[in-house]
């Protein structure tokens, strides 16, 4: 092999890198046919490449991805929220609406179990019952919560009883509507209705 020109080995590598010129390839082939030592060398190189390439492809162990994910630094909460919103836009909107609505309404609803009512000089409280005495007239709407209402006089407006009952004496009178609200859901509905009414009255005020 010592007698062989050094560039023969270089040509072998160029050949293996697929970067040999046609001219050199011809020269290499001619040389290999005549030189046993170089032929062995070239054969060994090709065998080496084949052996290295024959190593089987191995796969990452099971749970590799989970293990990596478990080791990552925690992501910002914002990203998790954003992802959720992106995936369920409608649900997200509904959820936000529901949280806000129920939040404000339920605080009203759960405002307490205590009796409360629209302050008025004309009404009298008897235990758990609000009484509009005979001969008295309440100007405006009357709302009673967590208690009963007995009307012996007159109410010039609407009457609403939440979580309670209303009794009307024969002589009593209400000029507006009478409404009893018992359930949380009805309270919700009532709130929405009155909010809408208010909105309506604002717009009609604008018209005037």
């Amino acid at each position, binding site marked *: 092999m010592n007698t062989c020109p050094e560039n023969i080995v270089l040509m072998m590598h160029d050949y293996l890198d697929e970067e040999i010129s046609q001219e050199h390839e011809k020269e290499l082939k001619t040389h290999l046919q005549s030189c046993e030592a170089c032929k062995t060398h070239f054969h060994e190189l090709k065998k080496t490449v084949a052996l290295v390439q*024959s190593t089987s492809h191995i796969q990452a162990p099971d749970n590799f991805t989970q293990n990596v994910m478990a080791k990552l630094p925690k992501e910002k909460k914002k990203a998790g929220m954003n992802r959720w919103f992106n995936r369920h836009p409608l649900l997200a909107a509904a959820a936000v609406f529901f949280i806000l609505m129920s939040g404000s309404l339920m605080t009203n609803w759960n405002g307490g179990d205590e009796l409360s009512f629209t302050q008025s000089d004309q009404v009298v409280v008897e235990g758990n019952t609000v009484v509009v005495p005979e001969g008295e007239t309440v100007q405006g709407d009357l709302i009673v919560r967590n208690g009963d209402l007995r009307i012996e006089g007159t109410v010039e407006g609407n009457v609403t009883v939440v979580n309670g009952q209303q009794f009307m004496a024969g002589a009593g009178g209400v000029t507006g509507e009478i409404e009893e609200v018992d359930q949380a859901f009805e309270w919700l509905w009532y709130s929405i209705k009155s909010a809408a009414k208010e909105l309506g009255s604002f717009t009609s005020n604008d018209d005037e």
Partner: protein
Amino acid sequence: MESIVKKRIQQVRKGDQDAFGEIVELFKDRVYHVCFRMLGNRHEAEDIAQEAFIRAYTNIHTFDIDRKFSTWLFRIATNLCIDRIRKKKPDYYLDAEVSGTDGLTMYSQVETDDPLPEEEVESMELQESIQKEISRLPDKYRSVIVLKYIEELSLKEISEILELPIGTVKTRIHRGREALRKQLRSI
């Protein structure tokens, strides 16, 4: 494939970890395989491959989105492997004699589950000896040989991964091939 990867990277940059999970799924086998051939040990390969993905995640903002992601990822992985090889204490090999025993090697201490067919044993032994010879290569030759023949990457890509001129990569491949040729001659 590249466009999916780019999209996922942008999601990761916005802080979406699940998108990174998909990237790991796409590249885990290739990264693990390169690490295994570099280190010659499954346990270490898993360790380093995981580390490579974690580094990629924490440094995702430094990645140039107009370049090939796999090149960048392989650079992280090969650098980690080379660091590990250099830090490693001389390892004991399975076929080294166990001290205090007469002619017993670690092979005889590793339990085999089932008797394997002859051919399979032969091919396994061949695979093991090839891997052992790759592991004996100096790390600068080992990385180019693994990237070229295991990952089948182009010289240009290898030069980008290792941040070396193409000429250097070529020389190292030649020398690595020559070294392996001498080691594998007897097989």
